[in-house]
């Protein structure tokens, strides 16, 4: 019974916090003033009311649950022999599921095609810059994080490489340093792809032997180095001034002349095609021997190695593949609009990781949904809250999400199994191991 007052306490604290978050803005001369003002205000009644309501729901929850569970999400499966057998049966029914997947995919694709037509141009712009580009980045990082189980915190560096490669090859004015010839950005796609993949190999070859967290910090360092060099090398990249004047994409082929421009919509559809293409390609990869090798490495690296999987080479492959997608996205971004080194900050790298985990690592659809939801949330909050406070809500949503759905929005089947198993104490959910001392498992 002592849990109830504690739950009430927590609810009230939450209510107070919400009051402070939504309350007035303070300053450093009277540091506690703003918090006090938001609590000593009539509004507090509303928040306390909400807190009590929350408490009631929590306390009465178990009883209400039966009713609500049927309507809302099905309860999380417990790992039992029965579940596992069920999982197995589901696997047997793979063929039937494939059909359903195609149907769902087609439906989602239709939504993706129609969606931009019913929203404002600003939203379209955001669908390109924020959602589309980040979905592409997340798909690439997903290969590294989700498939191979490696943590890359400097992923945006490859994006930068792609963008600067575009400026180098496709414009003679964008950067002080440029190619002696000018290429249509379309031709830069393969170049950037290869350059970024090479960069991935160069970075990965010596570092992939490092354990998970060391790899994380080395990649983080690499990302920062690229970012700082881009910002400092005035004579080469143009430094903080950025690269202005990279031409838009255009096609002049067999009578077809089309040029992309400022309008975001054509870019959206181009991105959509690319994203879907990448999803399909990585889907095939995932179901091939390569995908199975990655899964093996993720689940038990030692066993994978003993089974003949060239773990280092497979990780390097993942790294290079992920990097190349990032470089690809960089070309698209650079040809779409002006950029400067700010676009390649450490925070951007973190954000891509957040999109991948939030969406559900290892799941192609998941990471795209992650980009849609997170960036959509950011866009939604633009008008709803003070811009300066936007990231308070954003941060809160991420924490709440991770608490209640650590596997992400749309986890992949394989990953879900891994996580269920890891929760039951079998195997590891990623090659980084579990953060949980095994003893605290319930």
């Amino acid at each position, binding site marked *: 019974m002592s849990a109830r007052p504690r739950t009430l306490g927590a609810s009230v604290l939450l209510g107070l916090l919400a009051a402070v978050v939504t309350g007035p803005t303070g300053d450093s001369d009277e*540091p506690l003033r703003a918090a006090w003002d938001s609590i000593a205000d009539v509004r507090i009644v509303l928040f306390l009311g909400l807190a009590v309501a929350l408490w009631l729901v929590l306390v009465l929850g178990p009883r209400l649950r039966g009713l609500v569970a049927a309507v809302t999400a099905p309860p999380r499966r417990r790992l039992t022999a029965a579940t596992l057998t069920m999982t197995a049966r589901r696997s047997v029914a793979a063929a039937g599921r494939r059909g359903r997947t195609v149907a769902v995919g087609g439906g989602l694709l239709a939504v993706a095609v129609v969606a931009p037509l019913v929203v404002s141009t600003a939203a379209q712009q955001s669908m390109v810059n924020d959602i589309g580009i980040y979905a592409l980045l997340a798909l690439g990082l997903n290969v590294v994080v989700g498939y191979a189980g490696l943590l890359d915190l400097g992923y945006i560096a490859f994006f930068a490489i792609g963008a600067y490669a575009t400026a180098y090859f496709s414009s003679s004015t964008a950067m002080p340093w440029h190619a002696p010839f000018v290429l249509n950005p379309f031709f830069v796609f393969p170049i950037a792809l290869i350059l970024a993949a090479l960069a991935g190999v160069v970075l990965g070859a010596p570092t992939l032997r490092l354990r998970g967290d060391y790899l994380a910090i080395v990649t983080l360092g690499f990302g920062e180095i690229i970012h700082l060099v881009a910002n400092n090398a005035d004579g080469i990249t143009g430094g903080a001034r950025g690269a202005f004047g990279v031409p838009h994409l255009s096609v002049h082929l067999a009578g077809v002349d089309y040029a992309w421009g400022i309008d975001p919509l054509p870019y959206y559809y181009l991105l959509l095609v690319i994203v879907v293409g990448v999803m399909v390609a990585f889907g095939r990869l995932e179901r091939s021997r390569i995908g199975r090798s990655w899964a093996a490495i993720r689940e038990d690296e030692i066993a994978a190695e003993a089974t003949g999987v060239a773990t280092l080479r497979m990780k390097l492959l993942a790294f290079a593949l992920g990097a190349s997608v990032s470089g690809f996205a960089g070309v698209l971004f650079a040809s779409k609009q002006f950029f400067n080194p700010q676009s390649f900050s450490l925070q951007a790298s973190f954000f891509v990781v957040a999109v991948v985990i939030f969406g559900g690592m290892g799941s192609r659809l998941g990471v795209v949904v992650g980009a849609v939801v997170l960036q959509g949330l950011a866009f939604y909050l633009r008008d709803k809250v003070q811009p300066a406070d936007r990231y308070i809500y954003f*941060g809160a949503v991420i924490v709440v999400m*991770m608490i209640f759905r650590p596997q992400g929005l749309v986890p992949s089947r394989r990953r879900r199994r891994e996580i269920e198993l890891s929760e039951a104490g079998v195997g590891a959910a990623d090659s*980084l191991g579990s953060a949980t001392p095994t003893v605290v498992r319930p």
Partner: protein
Amino acid sequence: MGFLDQFWQLSVDGLMVGSLYAVIALGYTLVYGVLQLINFAHSEVFMLGSFGGLFAARALLPGDGSVPGGAGSIALVAVGLGAGAACGGLAAFTLERVAYRPLRRRAAPRLAYLISAIGASLFAVNLAGKEFGRQNVDLPDLFHNGTVFRLFGAAVSTQTLVIFAVAVAMLVGLDRLVAGTRLGQGIRAVAQDADTAVLMGVNVERIIIVTFVVGGLLAGAGGFLYAMTFNASYSMGFVPGVKAFTAAVLGGIGNVRGAMLGGLLLGLVESYGGYLFQASYKDVIAFGVLVAILMIRPSGLLGERLGRAA
């Protein structure tokens, strides 16, 4: 004018900043040692601690902008350290409760903790910005007698001396705590093998909380020291956080003495590097050194066991 002429001065500068990195790095290393988890929100613990200490010290300052000097200033530093530590500890406790514990209960994959930490960090940074304003907040120099002595020609001010001394005292104190007390024994036991530790009657949940709080106390006190010279602001945590994390890895994450060594070394490398090259390349140099060292010694300078540290 040459580098060698400034060598000692740069060393003093580097050691002062490095000692602060070391203090923050301990928080990363302790939590990593116990949970094998990078506590990415630790930088915000540091930020909140520094605000706490700074506001406490400012509240006690006379309104006319003067500083008491001498013993009065020492007392102010003590108050600031205490308040900073308290805020840092509280922040770390809350962080563990809200952003980590629920995940631990669910045995979430490790990356989920990372994202939860990033979310918590975004929340804390922007809430602090909202509550305390987005301007840097200054604490008047508590000591105004400038240089107290010269070390090989390098000027050492009272402020520098105080910061370095307090930081080193905290480092030594923590090292003793981990090496020589029952609590430290518990921490080391959990770090080495949580399963066995629980069989030996160690309360793992408690050790985890304590580890977070100890890291928070240090980061909070370190935050006040940082704010004494470098001002405080809502976004102040990120950079020293990344640096301290780098320092922890450099020394061998999970290793208490490694974090100290890594912090001091990183401070020195930055100081020398910033002098020898354009200062904006100093992070490039710092990260370059990190990568180079990890290539040669993949588990950091001193290896990585918290348990082995003592």
